[in-house]
């Protein structure tokens, strides 16, 4: 059966099905059993599976990560959420030194099947310490898988695959995706880790994007279509290990590349993608590759600054057209006027 679910509901269902399927799976996280249930993603789990399998944690991100690792190497499959990625970096030591390296440093004798969920986002004045998007830090560490689904469908399939994977997976969710719907099969299914997905086919330019930027890229592609530019969108889904073949194939075809990332630009995800494409497709590009991401600044809080800090579909479309030496029709910019740019939709009223 296939229904429409929100991204949050899809994540919830993925956890329910994994908890049902494997008694070694457990869910731990800041507020996992509380009334808000991590943006709804863990609501009802404690009621269904009990407090031995679904529980809260002290504000001890580093030790709780270590404890999850220890449980994983002894047979459990923890699904851990630290809520915001900004909090999770308190656990960097365990993630980088232990989770990422355990399998290698003991030559494969034990592995760490752990999923660490982290939330990124934008808007509603979350500000410098509550809206970072640090996927590049984790992707840079050999031994971590980094997953960033953009749709409810992939959120479910990739979370199930992550829980079933024998390796540490950093599972990054964008706050603005929780409310978005897509068709989600009811049965337990997994989407393969390490595989990009061409979510829109096109011939003139390839947009390689991830997480929430995929949503904005889809809107941008409509604008580009209106301008006569046919856009192919490759949704990254797994930042590391990255499925280069799918990207190379698309870029080889279109000859043009634009990377859209949720993080700050320098030394981030976008640079690696451009570098790798250039190294591998040298001479096949028709124009200089482009990228769109956050400026190299912390996130400012004021809603008036959200507009320029966080890129939107129009920014992507404008940049894409620039590689054809063209500008985006002003009408698209006009459409954005007056739209509150620090909220995902008008239902959103804060305070989180």
């Amino acid at each position: 059966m296939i229904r429409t679910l929100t991204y949050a509901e899809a994540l919830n269902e993925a956890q329910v099905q994994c908890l049902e399927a494997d008694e070694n799976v457990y869910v731990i996280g800041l507020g996992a059993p509380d009334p808000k249930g991590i943006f709804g993603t863990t609501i009802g789990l404690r009621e269904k599976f009990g407090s031995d399998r679904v529980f809260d944690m002290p504000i001890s991100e580093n030790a709780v990560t270590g404890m999850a690792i220890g449980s994983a190497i002894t047979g459990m499959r923890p699904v851990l959420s630290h809520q915001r990625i900004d909090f999770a970096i308190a656990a960097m030591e365990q993630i980088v030194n232990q989770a990422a390296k355990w399998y290698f440093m003991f030559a494969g004798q034990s592995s760490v099947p752990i999923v660490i969920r982290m939330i990124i986002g934008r808007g509603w004045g979350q500000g410098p310490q509550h809206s970072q998007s640090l996927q590049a830090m984790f992707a840079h560490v050999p031994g971590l898988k980094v997953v960033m689904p953009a749709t409810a469908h992939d959120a479910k399939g990739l979370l199930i695959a992550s829980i079933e994977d024998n390796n540490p997976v950093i599972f990054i969710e964008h706050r603005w995706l929780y409310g978005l719907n897509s068709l989600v099969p009811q049965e337990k299914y997994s989407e393969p880790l390490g595989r990009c997905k061409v979510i829109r086919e096109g011939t003139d330019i390839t947009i390689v994007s991830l997480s929430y930027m995929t949503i904005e890229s889809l809107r941008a592609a409509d604008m580009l279509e209106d301008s006569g530019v046919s856009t192919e969108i490759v949704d990254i889904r797994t930042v590391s290990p990255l499925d280069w073949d799918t990207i190379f194939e698309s870029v080889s075809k279109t000859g043009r590349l634009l990377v859209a990332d949720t993080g700050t630009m320098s030394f981030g995800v976008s640079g690696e993608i451009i570098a790798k494409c250039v190294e591998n497709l040298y001479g096949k590009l028709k124009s200089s590759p482009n990228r769109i991401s956050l400026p190299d600044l912390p996130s400012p809080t004021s809603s008036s600054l959200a507009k320029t800090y966080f890129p939107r579909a129009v920014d992507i479309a404008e940049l894409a057209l620039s590689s054809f030496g063209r500008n985006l029709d002003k009408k698209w910019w006009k459409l954005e006027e007056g739209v509150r740019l620090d909220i995902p939709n008008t239902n959103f009223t804060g305070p989180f």
Partner: protein
Amino acid sequence: MMIDQSVRLEFKQNLYNEMLRIRTVEERIAELYSEQEMRCPVHLCIGQEAIAVGVSAALQNRDYVFSGHRAHGHYLAKGGNLKAMMAEIYGKEGGCSQGNGGSMHLIDLSVNFMGSTPIVGSTIPVAVGAAFTAKIKKQHAVSVAYFGDGATETGVFHESINFAATQNLPVIFICEDNFYSVYSSFEERQSANRDIIKLVQGHGVNSFEGDGNNVEEVFNLTLSAVNRAREGGGPSFIKLLTYRWREHCGPNYDNDIGYRTEAEFLQWQAKCPLKAYETILMSMNIMSDALYQKLFSEYLTEMNNAVQYAKSQPFPSIKNAFTDIFSAQ
């Protein structure tokens, strides 16, 4: 210290007034939040005012203060500028952080309110560092770190306590124990056998416990810690029991959502730090209903002016926004 009775009464009056001022500001924020113009998370301190006020009364302007996500009261009690705070919450140019920070990033260097930031536990070591400066530069100043009961679960809290003890630094750790970390109660986070006072003493730090809804008790505990710190007696830890009335983040009551009971809330509401002190002051004939009305309307006017100011301030435009990440030499 206060021999003169009139000075003493004025001091008491001020304690009350400060609490009322903070309460008025916070209640007004709660009222106005639904306008959707304060577009950032707010963590109100309604119910916990006695701590900020009692602690601040024991401090001098030169003393450093650091806080976390729930900082409005700490900022105001230390003398932080109300207009700048409101403009900050409204995301405006005139805000104390020019809109870069919002409610969770308050600062007023003119009164040595050094900064509040919302990563739990994270400003505790920073406060210890300011105490280090105070000691090395012989500033005769102390440094205060405010944090909640949840923050005592962070590793950095323990590391900070140990470092402060090792270096014998003039820092006062103020733990506002309101029973909850967001919606999580102690059972989820700490052992029933935990004894934070003993724990901190084990680190080698003076450690006290008090009623966080009793402003004079807070003041007295803090004052003796401050005096000890100024005299080179090193750090102190003070745990103060209190209760947050509204939801963890945002303007509403949330006793209905399931993590705590209405009964528990009512019990603590009955221990309102303002009401309790008002009763005492009334019995001393300092306070009266009329005075309350006068004070309240003064503070409300002040607050309304601050909101007015905030609303009238321009938004930081890209051009005027503070966007430097590096300080020039």
